[in-house]
């Protein structure tokens, strides 16, 4: 009699088992999730103000620069050397500073390359002088110390209208500058209002990536949930002010926790590729 019951019991277990395993699955992502990254995902933003005041010589080089969603840098500021007399020259020079450049990444390194152009003039011993500088900074982010480290090179030109000009080349020279306060590469991903459709397979919502300096990159979120794998694949497309950013995520939910299995994409000129599997 036991032998006759066993196959029935076995059949019953087989029938019930799928439902048992399903009920332990997390299910499609729904609602809000937060995931903080530290060293595994780093997004660098050198935006900010750089005030390089060399008090001993009375020189000021002040500028602000900002990075857009494509990693392109724009900036402006001022350069002044108000009193050349301390070096035996009567006069002063000052100028307008324009900054253009880009942030890019390759493997483990994030590079920041930008040009500082100074255009201005002043008076030297009573004569008007035009002054121009084109400096090229090629640097990489040092994550350990939160700096940009590299070289600066370029040329400077002084011109006296009607008399000619002199140009000096600046050879590649060691350069370093700390990143603005608060920028350490860390970032936090927020997925908000994730709503699966009636089938539970399609998901929509919104998201944002918050950088360590407080900068917020907005995204719209759409994707699919695979019930068998218990995994969602989401596409994040840049929102207002962040149009050129794109990310894709493979993730699953464990209650309120978001387990990110893979993250890939590009934002602020930097490629992101993380796979925790």
């Amino acid at each position: 009699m036991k032998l006759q019951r066993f196959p029935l019991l076995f059949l019953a277990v087989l029938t019930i088992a799928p439902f048992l395993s399903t009920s332990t699955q997390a299910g499609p992502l729904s609602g809000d999730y937060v995931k903080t990254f530290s060293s595994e995902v780093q997004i660098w933003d050198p935006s900010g103000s750089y005030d390089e005041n060399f008090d001993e010589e009375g020189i000021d080089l002040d500028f602000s620069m900002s990075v857009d969603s494509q990693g392109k840098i724009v900036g402006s500021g001022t350069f002044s050397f108000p009193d050349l007399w301390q070096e035996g020259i009567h006069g002063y020079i000052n100028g307008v500073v324009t900054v253009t450049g880009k942030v890019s990444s390759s493997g483990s390194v994030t590079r920041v390359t930008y040009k500082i152009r100074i255009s201005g003039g002043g008076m030297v011993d009573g004569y008007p002088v035009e002054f121009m500088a084109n400096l090229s900074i090629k640097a990489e982010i040092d994550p350990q110390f939160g700096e940009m480290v590299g070289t600066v090179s370029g040329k400077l030109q002084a011109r006296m209208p009607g008399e000619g000009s002199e140009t000096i080349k600046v050879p590649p020279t060691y350069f370093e500058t700390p990143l603005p306060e608060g920028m350490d590469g860390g970032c936090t991903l927020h997925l908000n209002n994730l709503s699966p459709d009636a089938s539970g397979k399609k998901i929509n919502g919104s998201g944002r990536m918050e950088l360590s300096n407080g900068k917020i990159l907005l995204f719209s979120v759409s994707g699919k949930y695979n019930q068998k794998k218990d995994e969602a694949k989401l596409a994040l497309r840049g929102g207002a002010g962040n149009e050129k950013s794109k990310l894709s995520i493979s993730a699953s939910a464990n209650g309120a926790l978001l387990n990110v299995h893979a993250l890939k994409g590009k934002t602020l000129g930097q490629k992101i590729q993380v796979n925790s599997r």
Partner: protein
Amino acid sequence: MPKQPERIRPAVLVTILAVAGLVVLGLFVLNRSKTAEAHTSTPAAPAELPQPSHDGPPFRVTQQPVNSSSHVPSLSDRPESFLAKVVQRQSGPKNVPVSELLALIHNESAALGARRKAAKALGKSGSDEAFEAVKEILRESPSRIKAAIAEGLAESSHPDAKDLLFTLLDDQDEVCARGAVRGLGFMGSPEAVQKLVQTLHDENRPDSVRTEAALALGEMENPGAMVALMQAARSTEDPEIVQSILDGVGNRPISETREFFESYLQTPGLDSELKVAAIEALGNAEGAISDLLVNYTADADPEIRAAAAWALSASDRGEVGGDVLKALEREQDPSVRLRLYQALGNQQEYDLSSALVLVKSERDEAARLAAYHLLASHPAAGEDRGVLQFLQAVAVPELKATALNERQEFHHRLSSIMALGRAGRSTSAATDALQEVVGAGVDPRVKEAAITAIRTIAGH
């Protein structure tokens, strides 16, 4: 190693400007007809600037002998010149005993920049004592110190330095390996070129090291480096590596690379992403390139048009203002228009009235910010009544509102501040707006940018 506890003083850019600027200005006072006596004693600050000399301007190109009675002491004559001090400070420690260099390198409370310079100086030193110390340091030091040593080894006269540098190229620490790449780039020898080319093509190496090799080859004067780089641009399959190769080629003067870029951009079936990379690489090239770039502002692909416009904004000042204006008139894509406004600002001249018409009709928020920056930056902005009225009545209020709006995207807020800084040269309304931003309870970074912008106006 923990992050440095205090902000390192970023003095390099300023001192380079000061050094070179003073050398250039110093050349202006060489061979003046005034007597030397007026300059030999320590000068007291004058009450006001002197009037132009009736002898004519001081600028002369030809040199005169130092001992000539008509010679006027220049900056370089003075034994304790500012020039000498600053150059010494920036070039790092020279002829410092190895023990002192080691003490500085090991001093974790010293500024990292000073430790790096000491490490580089140690690497450069050709003595046996220094070389032994280098090998010891390489076993235990942080990545940046090792990288600095690798860079220094390139200049070392020690017979084993080159082999050690080649070894560091294979270091598991990517930072150190990149330092070795830069060292080889500095060496510039045919052997160094060969090593870098091998590194570039080696798919087993980390991408960061391969791309560093591409950039280093682009900095080398050795013509073999550029030949290898141009060949690699066409033969390498990995698009990320190709982009760095193109950046490397773009490091050279355009006179050396124009033909290559023209040919490369005409390659049949060239991937759009690589075309964009090539055009952007041109933005870094030294020399006149605007005539080539402006052609691509008419490309069918908006990504290429945007890349061309960005390169026009980043390259040497161009003379295609009229063409850029025409591109703006026909451009439908706001993200491209944004770049075109930036490009227009980097042209020698353009018709301000025509630009004003375009700016007034700009509807895209981000493009409008770039357009306002363009108008505000024009040298004649304060003299043109139409522009001034527009800045005062429309641009400045909108820029202020953007800067103060906590919900605005940070890049837009910062861009607004920078545009107000430029506008402040023409209208006090912009200065008032910036003062208001400083006084409001805004994001500290926005406030800091506003303070910098006010200084910009004051220093003009």
